[in-house]
Structures are given as structure tokens and as C-alpha cells.
């Protein structure tokens, strides 16, 4: 398969059993991913976005919010169109917008979904006067080291295996592990920011590598301890 075909099918592939993708197509994608670092990175980034989206708290917008949005659109449409257009019927263009039928392609729907999530997050944070939740999308960052994609893929695999077992741990152990991991992540984030401002800085490159090793070591230990 070509990269273009992979990109079009990656979202379905990541949906797993829900996507009803034929086994042979899934196998072709896996074969391609094994040999194409670019698509592998894309897959990693997409799966991190999906994971992050899943972890967003679920909020139901109040019914009044939709009314306010409808009113705002209605008012804006009326102001902009008043001099140029003939008077509309009493139902208004919000009503005609609602009655119209639209069809979207899957990529358009995915984009629409992402915009909707962003709008809801922005709307909710605006309503409550808080900052929007910070998402840890390290996989979506630009690689600062040549081998960074491979490193992240390895760490992601190890972490996924540990996360699958973590529910069985006692709460204290889980909290301690997450604290260790968070501290390493925090340092990594700080150093990556420093490296972003000067990507050729060999000292920061070395330190970022050391922190990736630290994270890998922690995950390896947990695997060895058979938790």
C-alpha cells in the first residue's frame, strides 16, 4: 500500500473492531507501518490524539447555550444581510439552515468533530472562567532528535502494556508510579522546549536523550517486577 492509502485508512484501522475493516486490509496496513517510519509516526500521533480526546471530561452544554448560539447567528445574519437581501420570511435563516440537509465525507466529519470538541472546550472554559485542559500530545510534536519517533513508539508500547495492568495495582503504588513518571515527563517537556529554541544544541540533545532513557528504564523495571 502507498502512504496516501494508509493515511486515508488509518483512522478506521485505529478504530479496531469497531471499524469492520477486512483482515487483509488491516494486515496490509500493518506491513506498511512496519516499514515506513513516517506513517508509523502519523499513527502514533493519531492514536495519541484519540487517547487524549477520550480522556477529556464529558460535559453536557446547557440547553440555553444552543439558544444563545442560534440567536447570535440569527442576529449576525440579519445585520450583515439586511441591506443587500430582500426580507426573509418570518422563520428566519436559522430555521432554513436547520431544515437544509448536508452530506459530509468521513475526513470532513473527522475535522468537524475536532472543531466541535475544540469549540466545546473553549466554550466551557469561557463559561467557567478557567483555562482549557492541557493535553499531553507529545507524539504530535515535531521530532527534535532523528531517532525520537522510534523512541516514542517504544515508550508508547511499553506504557500501553503497563496501563493495561495498572488497574490491578494498589492505589498507593499506582500513585507513586504516576508521580515518578510525571516528574520525568515534566523535565522532558522543559528540556524539549529549550531544545526547540535551539535545535542544534548538543547539550540539550544529550539531556533529552538521557531523559528518554530514564523513562524507558522506569517502564522496564515495572515490566521486570511483573506488576
Amino acid at each position: 500500500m502507498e502512504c496516501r492509502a494508509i493515511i486515508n485508512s488509518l483512522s478506521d484501522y485505529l478504530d479496531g473492531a469497531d471499524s469492520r475493516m477486512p483482515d487483509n486490509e488491516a494486515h496490509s496496513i500493518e506491513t506498511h507501518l512496519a516499514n515506513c517510519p513516517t506513517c508509523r509516526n502519523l499513527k502514533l500521533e493519531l492514536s495519541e490524539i484519540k487517547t487524549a480526546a477520550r480522556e477529556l471530561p464529558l460535559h453536557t452544554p446547557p440547553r440555553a447555550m444552543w439558544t444563545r448560539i442560534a440567536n447570535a447567528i440569527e442576529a449576525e445574519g440579519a445585520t450583515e444581510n439586511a441591506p443587500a437581501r430582500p426580507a426573509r420570511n418570518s422563520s428566519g435563516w436559522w430555521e432554513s439552515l436547520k431544515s437544509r440537509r448536508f452530506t459530509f465525507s468521513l475526513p470532513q466529519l473527522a475535522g468537524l468533530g475536532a472543531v466541535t470538541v475544540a469549540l466545546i472546550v473553549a466554550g466551557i472554559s469561557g463559561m467557567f472562567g478557567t483555562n482549557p485542559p492541557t493535553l499531553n500530545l507529545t507524539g504530535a510534536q515535531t521530532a527534535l532528535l532523528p531517532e525520537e519517533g522510534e523512541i516514542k513508539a517504544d515508550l508508547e508500547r511499553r506504557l500501553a502494556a503497563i496501563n493495561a495492568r495498572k488497574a490491578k495495582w494498589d492505589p498507593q503504588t499506582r500513585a507513586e508510579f504516576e508521580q515518578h513518571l510525571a516528574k520525568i515527563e515534566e523535565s522532558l517537556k522543559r528540556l524539549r522546549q529549550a531544545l526547540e529554541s535551539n535545535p542544534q544544541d548538543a547539550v540539550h540533545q544529550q539531556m533529552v536523550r538521557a531523559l528518554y532513557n530514564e523513562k524507558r528504564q522506569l517502564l522496564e523495571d515495572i515490566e521486570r517486577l511483573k506488576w
Partner: protein
Amino acid sequence: MSLVITATLTHSTGAQTFNRTFSVAPETSELEVVNQVGTIKVTPAAAAGKIVIIARQLDGDTKIDATQNAQGKVKVEVTGRGTVDFEITVPPSSNLDLLCYKGAITVTNLGGSVRARITDGNIQFTGLRSPRVEAHSTKGNVSFSGEVLPSGSYTLKSFSGRVDATLPANADFKLSAASYRGGMDLGGFQMKFEKQTDQLVEASHGAGRASVYLWTQEGSIHLHRKP
């Protein structure tokens, strides 16, 4: 074919004691210990060709398995939750691989390769004459004092703790030391610097044959001269 030896337990003052002795080849003996919580102390054996393991199970619900494989390597592994303190004696040239999640690891007066890893706790190596040393703590201090053998490799790392290395004044070694936040004290060694910043030092002392790598992200690094 491996020999599986079940724990021998005795009860004394509320704690259970595990005792096991293995016959090994003195020059090529190998020991691996995986502990969950507690201490691991390893010292030279009085009797040649024996690895003696004494463990006190202080609390919790733990199980200790001790096995020796066909090549003579001894592996001791703790499973379950609880504290176990080990006191182990080995032939002086034994190769060690020690892992503990929380507690402390100390190794004294041995001459084989030593690898120790702890997530939460200190590692202390004293009086070693080892060709290869690796000590790595995530949250704890790491200290080493001993000989530096020609072509030896000495790696001491801690994410948030202090790293101390006490080396003979006449040792020949190539140093790579990095501390992102805690600073470095190189202890008066007259070195030839190849790279020197506040956070990273690459230098050599004498003929620079052995490799010494010291790293800490949050802690400090201290190099000491042993007269």
C-alpha cells in the same frame, strides 16, 4: 534444565526468615535479585564457592523463589506485596544484577560486574574492584567508591538524587558528567577538558582509558579524590 528451590521459612519475632545456600563456580558465579520493597546487601562470602541468601520477610504477603539454572546462575525473585530485606554473601568475583523498587541496595568489597537499579531509594557501592559498574536510581542517591580498572566502565545515574564517585587520585579515566539543575563538583582532579559548561563536562584524567559516566537531572554531582 533449571533447579527450583522452594523457600524455607522459619518464624522469629513476627518475621519470616528465608535461608538458602547454592554451590557455584567461584570465578564465574552470577546472581540476579529482583526485590519489590526492602533492602539488598551483598558482601563477599567467607566460604569459597557458595552463595548464601538470607531474607527476612517483614510484612505483607510475599513469596520468594530461588532458582539455579544449568549454567549455575542463581536468580532470586520476590513476588507479592511486602517488605523483604536480603543479606547475601557471594564469591568476591561474582557478577551481580540487582533490582529493587523501593528500599536500598548496598554492595561492598566485590570484584565482579555489578548492575543495580532502584526506583525509590539509595544505592551504595563501597570498596569495589569491578570492571563494569552500573548504578541507577530514579529517586535516591547513588554513591561509588573503589578502583578504576583499565578499560573499565562506570555508570552512576540518578534522576533526582545526588551522585557521588570517589576514585583513586591516580586513576586513568575519561569522564562524561551531566547535571541539568544541581551543579557539579569535580573534586580537584586535574583534568583535560574537551567540553565544559555549567551542565555538562567531558574530560579525561591521566591516560583516560576507563569510562566514567555520571548523570543526574535534578541532583548534584560530586567527584572525590581518594589519596
